[in-house]
């Protein structure tokens, strides 16, 4: 546990240094850059790219969470039962669509820029959250549900005070899957002119500048790993609280 904490703090420090003080890394990346070429990406500040990247992911994931959880609640009510097989089909089929293809297919409809990236991230992000929320809400222990009914809670109270809190860890797992996919897909979003950290990697690939590629890759990879880890910690904490 202790070693995990030290690694975590070291990685956060490394990430902050890479984003805020890229100049410190000139000696590290210089051997990777072409001779006489630039070492550190300077066309845009890494901080603003990071913020824009995280912002796109946050907005898309938040919207996806709201819609997906609402849909899952509707489908798990008695009135929505007829839609359950259909929604299962849609999530199964939808998740076989590659995220890159969803992004590419959004461009002809929405044009270039941040818009298609947001929409693609949102659409793709719905599926894992919806699937997990549906599983979480439909596999509650029946004894608990009986007890909730027995103490006189109405439908709304049962949903808000019993069902959603119990399903929360499973829903969070869905959100985590969705956020990790969104971070990766947003990187590719820079090929359709969205302002994300993918810009640095693409610039490196186009000019054969490995220093850019490693720089962008490290920053995106560290963000993804740290966010993934933070959400796992949150889930574990919630799960132990539930188990108590």
């Amino acid at each position, binding site marked *: 546990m202790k070693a995990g904490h030290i690694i975590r703090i070291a990685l956060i420090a490394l990430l902050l240094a890479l984003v805020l003080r890229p100049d410190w890394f000139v000696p590290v990346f210089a051997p990777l850059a072409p001779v006489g070429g630039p070492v550190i990406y300077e066309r845009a500040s890494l901080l603003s790219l990071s913020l824009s990247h995280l912002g796109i992911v946050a907005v898309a994931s938040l919207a996806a969470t709201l819609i997906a959880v609402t849909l899952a609640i509707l489908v798990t009510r008695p009135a929505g039962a007829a839609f359950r097989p259909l929604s299962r089909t849609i999530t*199964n089929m939808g998740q076989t669509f590659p995220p890159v293809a969803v992004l590419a*297919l959004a461009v002809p409809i929405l044009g270039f820029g941040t818009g298609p990236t947001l929409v693609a991230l949102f659409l793709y992000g719905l599926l894992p959250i919806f699937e997990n929320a549906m599983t979480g809400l439909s596999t509650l222990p029946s004894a608990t549900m009986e007890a909730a009914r027995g103490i006189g809670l109405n439908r709304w109270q049962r949903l808000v005070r019993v069902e959603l809190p119990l399903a929360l860890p499973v829903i969070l797992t869905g959100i985590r899957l969705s956020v990790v996919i969104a971070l990766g897909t947003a990187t*590719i979003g820079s090929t359709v002119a969205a302002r994300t950290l993918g810009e640095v990697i693409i610039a490196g690939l186009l000019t054969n500048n490995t220093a850019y590629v490693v720089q962008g890759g490290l920053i995106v990879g560290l963000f993804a790993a740290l966010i993934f880890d933070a959400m796992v910690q949150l889930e574990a904490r919630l799960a132990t609280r539930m188990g108590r």
Partner: protein
Amino acid sequence: MKRIGAQLSPPGLLFAVTGLALLQAPFLSLAPNRIALGEGVTLWRLTDGAATASCVLAILAGFALGLLRSRPALRLAGAVLGLIGLLGLVVISAPALLEGAGEYARVSPAAGFWGLLVVMTLLLADSLTQFRPRPLTRALLLALGLGAVAIFLRSDGISQLSVMQEYAARSDAFMTATRRHLALAFGSLGAAAVIGFPLGILCHRKVRLRGAVLPVLSFLQTIPSLAMFGIMIPILGWVAANVPGASEAGIAGIGFTPAFFALLLYSLLPVVSNTVAGLASTPAAAREAARGMGMTTGQRLMRVELPLGLPVLLAGLRIVLVQNIGLAVIAGLIGGGGYGSFVFQGLNQTATDLILLGALPTVLLALVSAVVMDILVDLARPNSEKSP
């Protein structure tokens, strides 16, 4: 009145309402050339003869039949009828629209067509799930569906569509890209199976190894694909330059190799973790019985644990295959070939149909692989023919 309402299928009602709305959207789009933005043409402007009118009627009849809750056979027939009408309309009206529109004019399916196609496919899937088809029936249905797609793609009218013209202009490159895409997806799947199954078996036996391997593999899985592909380039470039015999073995910093290794790294987690889960799922009673019969550890693995865990192991391969078919698109960015090269060329040239030429086969390939792997997973299950 209430009785009629009770017999309507709620999803069918949703399909019908969405479908009617989509019938008002632009069905095809006509552009003066391959780069220019197209102008939408609605269904009603295309309907001018008996042939097109009957296609529209088939679509409407399909949605109407889809409403019947307790008659899955009629719903299925409706979905098939609707799909035939939808595709027939494109085949008939695309050449008609191009007539007199100029030498470089291009016709593409527009939002209305794609929307109707999705809704009809969902109606088809929804009515099929009512039948709960067995694995072999699903295989037959898949073959029928693919046959229909092949016939549709070979029809005369469809060759007038802009995507098909992009295809005709580079059919050789398309075949090369297909081979490369399949080689990337299946090659890395095979390599992941060769490495992942033994690693999974080891992890199953040694708890400490499992504690070390699985977190590393799930960390690899979180690395965004573009970063992973990018970082593979310098690493493999270094290997090719510094490890004797590596470059002779075909390892290089650009092209196929970095894409292959990136996909392999992503594939390991599902294979290893599903192997561990599959082996752990052996019922304790079966394990005890095997031990009681005097089987050695190796015999228990081969005769009891692996056969019983096979569905879970195959489910891991399904995840990998679908994931790799999608991720292999990124290879197009680092010169690795595959359908991704069309997608990214299309994005660079803002040529929508070139994007579609790369994205549509990828989606189709992923869908077909998912269905085939699901069938295999069900077949591997004991008593698969008895359970629904």
